[in-house]
């Protein structure tokens, strides 16, 4: 019954929201790519690169928000590489994506060693601090959970709405969705499928990098290897869980994060002494798989996902 008590503590929900934030950024990024018809498996590596780039920029003396921009630009450059290979060249999106992940991860580690050859433990930066939104943060339970977070978390939630509005309420979003459904329909209207897809992959990759930067600039205040730790792959699943819709993807991210926050706390209860802690570590993933099975039955996969488009081919 300790579990029930945990569910009603503000600190539990605050932790869930915090854990969800990087997932929200990266899931939105992946969602944009896939809506345009490109599976971006570079996500894991791009998050690593973003985590390092943002942190390194701040460590070198820039402001925090400049650091976020630096991370985004680095992400967009990897997006440019990914989309150049997958869109105009039409290469396998699986192979290119994994290649980008390996390249981004290893070149980040290399850059880290080049930049900080002498350090044994990574230096710390002054990370984003929680900002209590007046009045709203005084609401019991909800206030401390939702409205006492860092500015980057607020940005993540705002972006969900922005992405949804752009996708469903603007001609640009319509063109992106159509590119993922039937690129021939886009080309028949005289629009460039190549430009739309490359733009979507670059924008999406930028968001993934910001998701990575959240880890070094908001959740923690330092960069260390393996800190992304498979979050990118979780986001790929969250996109499916969310049926390629921003709002449902947000729900999935928070749900996964809540499982994660819960298992940490359950480990410290009496149950934690009975059951090996590895079981608790597995829990969010097992529950995610179950939720995925339930949710993705009726998911509408973009029809042209992973289908390269060549103008003039039958």
């Amino acid at each position, binding site marked *: 019954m300790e579990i029930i008590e945990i569910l009603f503590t503000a600190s539990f929900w605050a932790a869930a929201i915090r854990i969800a934030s990087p997932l929200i950024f990266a899931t939105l990024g992946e969602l944009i790519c896939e809506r345009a018809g490109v599976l971006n498996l570079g996500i894991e590596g791009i998050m690593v690169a973003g985590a390092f780039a943002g942190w390194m920029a701040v460590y070198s003396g820039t402001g925090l928000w400049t650091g976020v921009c630096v991370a985004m630009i680095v992400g967009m450059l990897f997006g440019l590489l990914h989309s150049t290979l997958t869109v105009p060249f039409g290469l396998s999106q699986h192979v290119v994506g994994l290649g980008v992940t390996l390249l981004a991860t290893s070149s980040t580690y290399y850059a880290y060693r080049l930049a900080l050859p002498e350090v044994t433990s990574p230096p710390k930066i002054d990370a984003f601090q929680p900002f209590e939104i007046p009045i709203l943060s005084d609401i019991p339970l909800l206030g401390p959970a939702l409205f006492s977070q860092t500015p980057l978390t607020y940005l993540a939630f705002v972006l969900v709405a922005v992405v949804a509005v752009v996708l469903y309420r603007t001609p640009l979003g319509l*063109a992106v*969705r*159509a590119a993922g459904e039937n690129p021939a329909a886009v080309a028949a209207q005289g629009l460039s499928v190549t430009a739309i897809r490359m733009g979507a992959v670059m924008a999406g990759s930028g968001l993934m990098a910001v998701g990575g930067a959240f880890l070094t600039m908001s959740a923690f205040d330092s960069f260390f290897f393996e800190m992304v730790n498979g979050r990118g792959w979780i986001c790929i699943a969250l996109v499916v869980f969310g049926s390629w819709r921003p709002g449902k993807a947000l729900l999935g991210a928070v749900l996964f994060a809540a499982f994660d926050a819960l298992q940490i706390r359950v480990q410290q209860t009496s149950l934690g002494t009975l059951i090996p802690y590895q079981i608790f570590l597995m829990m969010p993933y097992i529950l995610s798989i179950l939720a995925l099975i339930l949710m993705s039955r009726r998911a*509408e996969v973009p029809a042209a996902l992973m289908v390269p488009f060549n103008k003039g081919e*039958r």
Partner: protein
Amino acid sequence: MNTAPVEALALDAITKRFGELTANDAVSLSVNQGEVVALLGENGAGKTTLMNILFGQYTADSGAVRVFGKTLPPGNSRAALDEGVGMVHQHFTLADNLTVQENITLGARSLFSPGLGRSAARARIVDLSRKFHLSVSPDARVGSLSVGERQRVEILKALYRDVRILILDEPTAVLTPQETDDLFATLRLAIADGLSIIFISHKLHEVMAIADRVVVLRHGKMIGGVDTQDTDKNALAAMMMGTEATPPKVSPATPGAALLELRSVTTADVGSVPGLKSVSLALQAGQIVGLAGVSGNGQAAIADVVGGLLHPASGELVLNQEAVRRWTPRNAVQSGIARIPEDRHKTGTIADFDLVENAILERYKAPAFSKAGWLNWRKSRAFADGIIDKYDVRCPGADTPIRLLSGGNMQKLILGRVLEADPQIILANQPVRGLDIGAVNYVHSQLLAARARGAAVLLISEDLDEVMALADIIHVIADGRLSPGFARGEMTPAQLGLWMAGQGFDKGVAHAS
């Protein structure tokens, strides 16, 4: 019209080469406002190339395109669209998961304008669909629409963009006769409104019905143009092919024993497509049985039952007077049933396989092509070369991927693959859909030849003319029910049309017995 005609479109000496091949050789064409010009030509005559140049998808080597006097920049679809050139492709360019309205408004506004202007767009779509009798709901998902409705969306898409010149590439190939009539009614409304149309079709009676003028392309050259009132179907066919097209002569049939029978076969409904309702049908040696009807009334179920893809819920299948127990596609092929499938791209061939692989697709296990699990490529290749030779499959060679062949040549390969096995029973499902007249006559003559050597043929077609010309016995299928068999010449098209509309079945039971 009293006013002097306004020239809407002028193609001026368009030449386009692909390597050795000259697809368009100094082709000139002019279309006036409010005029319907039909563009005729066999497969590979250069029609599609010409339209792609007009629409800015290809760049011509020389020549110019003018729309209402304004020369279009070459190779720029956007400019063509902006000048009011619209095209309805044979394969629709719609996104299934988007709504009708989303498909129509895609690209209509600048990508970076802030909103979609949804209510205004919606009002305009409703307006246009009322004005041109194109009933379709703006909120429906395109994926849930019928083929006819999707075409309405394509036309609405063009009208929404204030199209002034509309290119229709084989618009009726996928439509039922009723839908074709509706389409023509819509087009006439738009023509009266000043729209100019270029109509590409193989169906000469439709060309005669809708077009003011016909121009003919042959081997990339413009052969000439005539007003439809000064010509007839035979003359047009002759212009297209360069020779008089003679449909094969049909001699009286000499039917033998029943080779395959369906006895009171009933199948389950599949979605909105009705299943078969106690269908009995006999295929006799040396006879062509025609199955007429609007598509989606159970034709596919009959074809699948015969081909072994679908098992009857009740009733039985009788092969050579013996009821069959296990019936799979492999059993069907081994029992000498040859299948010419309805969709040659989807189920007839494997697009990226070459002609050799496609030729042995159904019979790779036969001793002629494999032994102890090893394929014999030498014999397979000889077999494919034989078909290419005998059935005049025009291709660069047997190792070409079959997707590069035109529809007619693809069908010839399927025909060869099927007929070379000397089948006893031939299931020909829409065997000439989308083919030009030369290829149609060829397929028909091959089916008649098979009949002459004693094969039983089941011909499924939506084209009533085709069924009436070839079939010795005609059944009509409507809503999963099969009419009694009518002998050649027993029924007029109008009478068969009533059966197709579902009338006559209730009193028809007595007639059948």
